[in-house]
């Protein structure tokens, strides 16, 4: 009985050693990462590999009527391979593999790509369609750093407040509808919220407007006390939440049936709800939002085709097709003229700078406070995740 046991232990020890070395072997290999922008373009490589949100790179294989990739392939001679991702964190891991030339990144991803040397600066002179882009989308804090531009804007949209008119005597105009106790009491068990740590920023935005003593300047730059305050607000909200959503089809159905009557949403969700009583509003406090950027990988082997793609997807026609399909605001007035629904840009408030000023675009919370404070350390995304776990309980 003794020997096999000991032998078993030796075997286990060997196995763990083996797995450690196997895991260690998968570690990083810091080879030639080019983070500086190129001066001029060379010859086309004949291929480009793209990493993007679902619905950004459609070649007709999902829906034959939805295809803007084939035209690009024909014109540029660059064959496109693409991969979609579900969360910004997944995209970060995929981008690190170095297999992708171009990445469509939201604001909560772009800075992380730059920080980990995965992004190459962009020479916007080589992207002719860049000059069409709305000025307020250029050189922003989520697509440039230290005066260097790391990406070209794709489109943007806000996280709005959706509500069922039947449950409100007067239409809500404030996020208080989902954060104020008296308001919540009316819709107990029918409140919904976005299921991601980034939703903490929504609570922080509300606190920023309602409790100035907390001193929140930017909902993505929270020190420990401010994060605790936002968590407390969300824990209180948790008592009234029927369910959290991350799958947008789930929210459509919940509003359709009336299981949810108030909560945060995207414009594209509202457009898909057929229930006439459901409406959306941009509350007076403003809102959190996303703003997506096409970035170039520092490990790209096909930079010339990558530039061609960025220029193509910024062209009015392609940008109109892609943003209309996804349900977000296009990036240029020329693209607005090309949408099949003439009212698309009005619906999504494209180019409305006043509207965009009320939006706090998603960014990655990091230890260095994004609002410029240096006397305190801010909470980072890992702490937000921990807080979110505790909020849901």
């Amino acid at each position: 009985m003794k020997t096999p046991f000991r032998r078993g232990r030796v075997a286990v020890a060997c196995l763990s050693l083996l797995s450690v070395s196997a895991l260690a072997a998968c570690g990083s290999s810091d080879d030639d990462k080019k983070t500086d922008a190129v001066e001029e373009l060379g010859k086309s490589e004949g291929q480009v590999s793209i990493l993007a949100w679902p619905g950004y790179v459609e070649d007709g294989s999902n829906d034959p009527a939805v295809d803007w990739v084939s035209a690009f392939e024909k014109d540029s001679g660059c064959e496109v391979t693409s991969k979609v991702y579900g969360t910004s964190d997944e995209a970060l891991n995929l981008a690190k593999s170095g297999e992708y030339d171009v990445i469509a990144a939201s604001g909560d991803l772009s800075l992380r790509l730059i920080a980990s040397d995965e992004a190459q600066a962009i020479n916007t002179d080589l992207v002719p369609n860049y000059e069409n882009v709305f000025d307020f989308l250029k050189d922003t804090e989520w697509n440039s750093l230290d005066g260097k531009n790391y990406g070209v804007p794709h489109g943007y949209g806000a996280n709005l407040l959706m509500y069922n008119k039947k449950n409100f005597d007067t239409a809500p105009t404030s996020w208080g509808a989902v954060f104020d106790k008296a308001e919540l009491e009316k819709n107990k068990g029918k409140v919904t919220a976005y299921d991601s740590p980034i939703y903490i920023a929504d609570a922080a935005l509300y606190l920023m407007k309602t409790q100035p003593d907390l001193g929140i300047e930017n909902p993505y730059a929270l020190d420990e006390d401010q994060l605790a305050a936002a968590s407390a607000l969300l824990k209180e909200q948790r008592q009234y939440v029927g369910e959290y959503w991350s799958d947008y089809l789930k929210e459509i159905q919940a509003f359709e049936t009336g299981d949810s009557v108030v909560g945060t949403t995207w414009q594209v969700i509202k457009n898909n709800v057929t229930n006439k009583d459901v409406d959306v509003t941009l509350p007076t406090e403003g809102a959190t939002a996303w703003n997506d950027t096409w970035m170039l990988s520092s490990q790209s082997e096909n930079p010339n085709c990558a530039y061609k793609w960025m220029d193509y997807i910024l062209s009015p026609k392609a940008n109109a097709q892609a943003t209309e399909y996804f349900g977000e605001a296009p990036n240029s007035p020329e693209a607005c003229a090309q949408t099949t629904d003439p009212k698309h840009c009005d619906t999504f408030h494209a180019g409305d700078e006043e509207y965009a000023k009320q939006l706090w675009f998603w960014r990655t919370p990091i230890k260095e406070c994004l609002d410029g404070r240096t006397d305190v350390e801010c909470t980072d995304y890992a702490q937000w995740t921990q807080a979110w776990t505790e909020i849901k309980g």
Partner: protein
Amino acid sequence: MTSTVPDTDQAPAPALRGPVARPGSRLLHRMVWLRLSLLLSAPLAWMVLVYVVALAALLITSLWSVDSLSSEIDRTWTLDNFRTLIENEVYRNVTVRTIGVALAVTVIDVAIALPIAFYMAKVATPRARRMLVVAVLTPLWASYLVKVFSWRVVLSEGGLAEWTGLGSPGYGLTAVVITQSYLWLPYVILPIFAALERVPDSLLEAAGDLGAPGSMVLRSIVMPLLVPGIVAGAIFSFSLTMGDYITVNIVGGANQMLGNLVFVNAGAANNLPLAAAIAMIPIVVMLVLLTAIRRTGALENI
């Protein structure tokens, strides 16, 4: 090794009809260990790679940490993840909730499966039995997601549950228990059915002939033969519920279970070490449970 190596023949062998054994076969015939290792190496390698190495990798990963900005894994040994699990109340609550749901699902499933399996094995005509087996197996042909989303629709406001006048519990833990009980029921019925089928009718008749009352037949003949089946079914439903995170996402309202925490940390927060540490919880629970069951001897007859 008991007399597997034959002695050389004393008597002259009868004329061989087939070809003489090839050298390879003769070698394998003589070397028992070689035969065994050739036979077992492929499945063993598979077992080791898929189960043991994966588990070891999980354990090792849980002892690492992650750098929050670049999200690189920091490979210095630390027990921080386990400290987080122990010090944070939320993980205890979620663990207790998950075990509670798994227990409820198991009890409900066994309670429903016993009479159904008994009817299938002992009462129904052979024709009806075949029909019933097919009926039990049919739900397994439909996609898991389709079934869970159907339950979402059934339990929604103004859904089927309200039409029937029973009323809907709404989305929440009750909905999770109902849905999971439905999902795993076939996995509980089948082993109990198989165990019941193995109870020979002659034993029951003999017991009846000897004057044993029904309760005694059940206690001293049926149950001992049935326990392994029940245990097997219970292990299925319990472990499947412990690991699930999609059902609770769809019909669980605002609740989360252990699987959701693993998913959030692996998928969204990119904190694989913490996800690995959380994944150890259901493994430990299952190990404790299996050891306890083994003590009772119920595993020997599976």
